[in-house]
Every structure is written in C-alpha cells, then in structure tokens.
C-alpha cells in the first residue's frame, strides 16, 4: 500500500548573512515520513525543530533544498498547473492562530469559499449552499456567513478556518497547532470536532503539535522531531507507552501525568536545544543525551531503524 503523503529525505536549509554567505540554518535536515489515507499522523517536537517548515513544504508554500515530498505518488514541487489545482483541492490547512489566518476585510462566506472560487467554476448559488453546509458541519449558523471575522470569538474563528479547509473535500488536512492558540476550555470542543469530521469524512490529518495531550487524543501515528530530523516514529500508543529514543522519553516524562499519584520521574535534559545554525556532529542529540554511550554518538549520525513497532534513530537501538 502506498502512502497518501510520503516525504523522503526532505530538507530545507536557509542561508544567512550577506548574499547568503553566512552559515546554513538546517531547519529541516532529511526527513522521512509517511501519512496513510484516513489516519492522523502527529509530528511533535519543541519550538524551532522544523515542524512548521515541514508543513510549508508540504503545502507547496516553499521549495525544498533537497529530497522529495510526494502526494499520491506525485512530487508536490513538480506538479503541472492542472495537477496543482487538484492538489490545492486535495490538501488543505488549518493554521495555529485564528486571529491571523482569517482576512479581517473579508466576509466569512468568501473566506470559506476561497478554495471553491479559486479552483472550480461553481455558480454563486452552489457556492452559497456549499458554504452553508460547511458552516453547519463545524457547528456554526449558515446565516453567519455574512459576518466579518472580528465578530467571532477565537474558537468560532478556528471553526471558520476548519470550514474553509473542509469545503473542497480534501483528502489531507495539515493541522499546524490547531488548538494551541485557543483557551483551554475551547480546545476540547475543537479537538472533538476534528475527530468527528475525520470519522465522518475519512480524510487524513497531519497534526503538528508540541502539546502531548492533543497528540495523544487525536493521533494514530506519532513522529518525534529534533533539530530538523525525525528521531522516533511509530503507532501513537506504542510511542507513548514505550518511548525508545532518549529524547522522546524526556519529552513524555516532562508532560504532566494524567493521574497525579502515579510515580513518574521526570527526565531533565541538560542545556538548551542547540541552534540549527550549528547542528552537532554525529547524533544531533548527543550533547544533551542522558544515555550517551561513547564516541559513536559523536561521530556517526544514526539512521531510523525498526525497534519493536516503532522506528528509532539512536545508537542504543542500532544493535
């Protein structure tokens, strides 16, 4: 079975300094990742690890330095104009901040209908009907399509953003931290809405998050990212139950336990995440790694290798 979305060795480096002669920023440094149709694949990692760069590459908002991103076995960055129109219908996105992702000068109707207006030739009436249906699906009233974004709350705005992502019946939606800008009381509603939509419509989600609770609730598959690389990937329950990479272990141990009586020793990492300007030699995690096993960590970059039902890139697991 081929994956709906497949990233192979995807990399994006940014140049710095005058005329780009400064050091490289390796925002994304060779990522392999697969998203199957209908599943939710979560990518977690701390700020600056490259999650959003990856999302922008998949959405064809940016071009990779190396590697390939394929949707439906077609290279996203080499699509013909006609194919690109299909791609725009098939892949949609919901961004983090619902205050920034809606045009303040556009009525909800036009915001939600954007994909239809841009890629189809439906009549005004048909578009209105589709918008009304999409708004109902996200539990807003169809007559609210005449309003402007500032008339809505944050949660409602995120519903509008979700409606506009749904309108073209996409097969994949990139959710870039869809709830992290919302009040805690609203997060559950939006997460339930997303889960229901997926159950009813069967589209795949690529969820980008740093919040483990969201991830746990929504994800089927989890990939953990560190400094522009995937360090561990596998089924969500497997990764959360038996994290194998030392970084994953630290990340999961840092989250608050759901039961305050459980005895969980938090693993405190040394130092800060290094700047992607100077990624350490060998395993990028070795300067902070609590399980450092010797010079191999300083010299060899570990590859993703199967370990149980997950894949891990760590020398601890490479034998």
């Amino acid at each position, binding site marked *: 079975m081929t994956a709906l979305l497949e990233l192979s060795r995807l990399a994006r480096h940014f140049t710095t300094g005058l005329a780009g002669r400064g050091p490289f920023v390796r925002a994304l440094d060779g990522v392999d990742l697969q998203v199957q149709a209908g599943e939710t694949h979560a990518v977690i990692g701390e700020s600056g690890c490259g999650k959003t760069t990856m999302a922008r590459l998949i*959405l064809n*908002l940016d071009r990779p330095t190396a590697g390939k991103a394929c949707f439906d076995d077609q290279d996203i960055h080499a699509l013909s104009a006609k194919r690109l129109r299909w791609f*725009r219908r098939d892949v949609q*996105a919901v*961004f983090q901040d619902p205050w920034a992702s809606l*045009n303040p*000068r556009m009525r909800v109707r036009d915001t939600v209908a*954007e*994909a239809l*207006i841009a890629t189809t030739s439906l009549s005004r009436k048909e578009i209105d009907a589709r918008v009304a249906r999409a708004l109902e699906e996200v539990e807003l009233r169809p007559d609210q399509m005449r309003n402007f974004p500032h008339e809505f709350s944050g949660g409602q705005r995120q519903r509008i953003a979700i409606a506009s992502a749904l309108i073209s019946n996409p097969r994949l939606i990139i959710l870039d931290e869809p709830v992290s800008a919302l009040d805690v009381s609203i997060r559950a509603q939006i997460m339930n809405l997303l889960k229901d939509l997926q159950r009813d419509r069967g589209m795949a989600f690529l969820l980008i998050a740093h919040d483990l609770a969201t991830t746990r609730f929504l994800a089927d598959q989890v990939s953990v990212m560190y400094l522009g690389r995937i360090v561990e990937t596998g089924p969500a329950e497997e990764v959360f139950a038996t994290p194998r990479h030392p970084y994953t272990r630290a990340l999961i141990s840092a989250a608050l336990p759901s039961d305050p009586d459980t005895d969980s020793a938090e693993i405190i990492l040394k130092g800060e995440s290094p700047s992607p300007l100077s990624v350490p030699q060998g395993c990028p995690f070795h300067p902070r790694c609590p399980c450092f096993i010797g010079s191999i960590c300083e010299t060899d970059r570990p590859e993703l290798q199967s370990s149980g039902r997950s894949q891990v890139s760590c020398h601890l697991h490479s034998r």
Partner: protein
Amino acid sequence: MASSRLPVIPLALLVLVLLGPALLADLIAPHDPYQSHLRNRLQPPVFAGGGWEFILGTDRLGRCILSRILHGARYAVAISAVGIVLGAALGSALGLLAGYARGWTDAVVMRLVDISFALPSVLLALALAVVFGPSFSAVLAVIVFVLWASFARQVRGEVLSLRERDFVARARVAGASHLRILSRHILPNVANTITVMATLQLGVIILLEATLSFLGIGVPRPTPTWGLLVADGRQFVVSAWWISFFPGLAILLSVLSINLLGDWLRDRLDPRLQQV
C-alpha cells in the same frame, strides 16, 4: 488618542474656501476674473478703505481679487484631485508589485523611489517647463513624480508584512491566484493607509502647485491659480499687501483644514484602534 468626532471647523473651512468656490465660482464671483478695471487699479479691500464693489481689493490691472481667488479654487481642486489619483494609483500599484514580488522587481522599484526622493521637485519642474513649456500637464507630471514614491514606499512596507500573514498562506493553500491574493487579500488591507496618505498629501500638492506657479513654472498665466495670485503681488507687498495676502490665506486655510481632516481620518481608519 485624538478625538474621533467629526472635525466640524476644518470641514466647514474646506467647503468655504476650497470646495464651494470650486463648484460655484461662476455663480458667486462678483466679477470676471480676467476682466481689468483700469480705473480701479490697486483698490484696497473694503475694510482697509476700499469700496464694496471690490471686497478684497484689486490687483495692478484692476482685476477683482475675490473673483480670482474663487476661480483659483477650481484649479487647486482640479490639480490636486487629478494629481492625487494618478500619483496614489501609480505609487500604490508599484508598491504592491514590489512588496509582493520582492527580488529584483523590488530592488528596481525601490531604487527608483530613492532616485525620486533625491531629485529636488522644483528642479524637475524647471526642467519640464523648459522642455515642454509651462502647462497644466507639466504641473501634473511633477506632482505625480513627487507623490508616487512616498506611496510606493509605504505600501511596499505594508505588503511585505501582509504577504507573510497566515491568511495569505491560507489563500495560497486554497489555490488562489496571485491576482486574487493581491486584489482580495492584500489591497483591501492597505486601502486605509492609501486613503489616509492621499488625504494628507493633498495639502502637500496644493502647496507644491502654488510654489510652482509662484516661480512661474506652473500653470501658465493668466490662469488665476493661487500661486500665481501670490506671485502677482510680489512687487506690491509693501504698498498693496492684499494682492498676495488673500490668496496666501486661502492656501493656508485649505492646507490646514485638509491636514486636520487627514489626522482625523487616520484615527478613524486605523484598524488597530478600531478592532478593540
């Protein structure tokens, strides 16, 4: 924050000095602005010993100052309206393009802006007047040349920040074309800025036009533009001060009220103040 109440006094002044006369000059002017009354040369205004026939006095050819000022308003309005529309349109379009396309387009446009800021407008006007002869179109050309750069620079700056906003990314993901993103997402969000700038620049244009006319490189004589009227009284400033004084006052009041209106408009249209 300044008061957002409608500024009644500047508005009234504007109607009284600029808009009213521009529309109604033919009806309300007591005399033909070009007609000389040689027996009534250099008549002082009524409150300085003159008669009621020439309320604001006459110039050295005996032409009625009041009538000339009223007719001059027409030229002030025509030149500034056409100038501002052309200048704002050209500057905004180039700014939009530069900010959105970036790269070498941006570099070229911004260097042109720098050049335009570096050239003294009066010098340019002199050159144009020498090449084409003083004319209405030459004045317009100078005005557009002076205006476009500030619009281009301001609009480009806003577009640079707008194009990175999430709603533009969302529109691209939805498949919107560049044209649609520019016209539906970016332009509406810089429209307020353009409106406010246009209002504030109106005053600048009226002053510029007056300067050019005063130097004799504006709209050619005997058209009664305000700058020319001020220039007419140059030799008589001591003996017949009213020839220059009243057109000067008209310029002052117009520019002042336009600037006050522009400030008010800026407060009203600033989305940061509005959305709270």
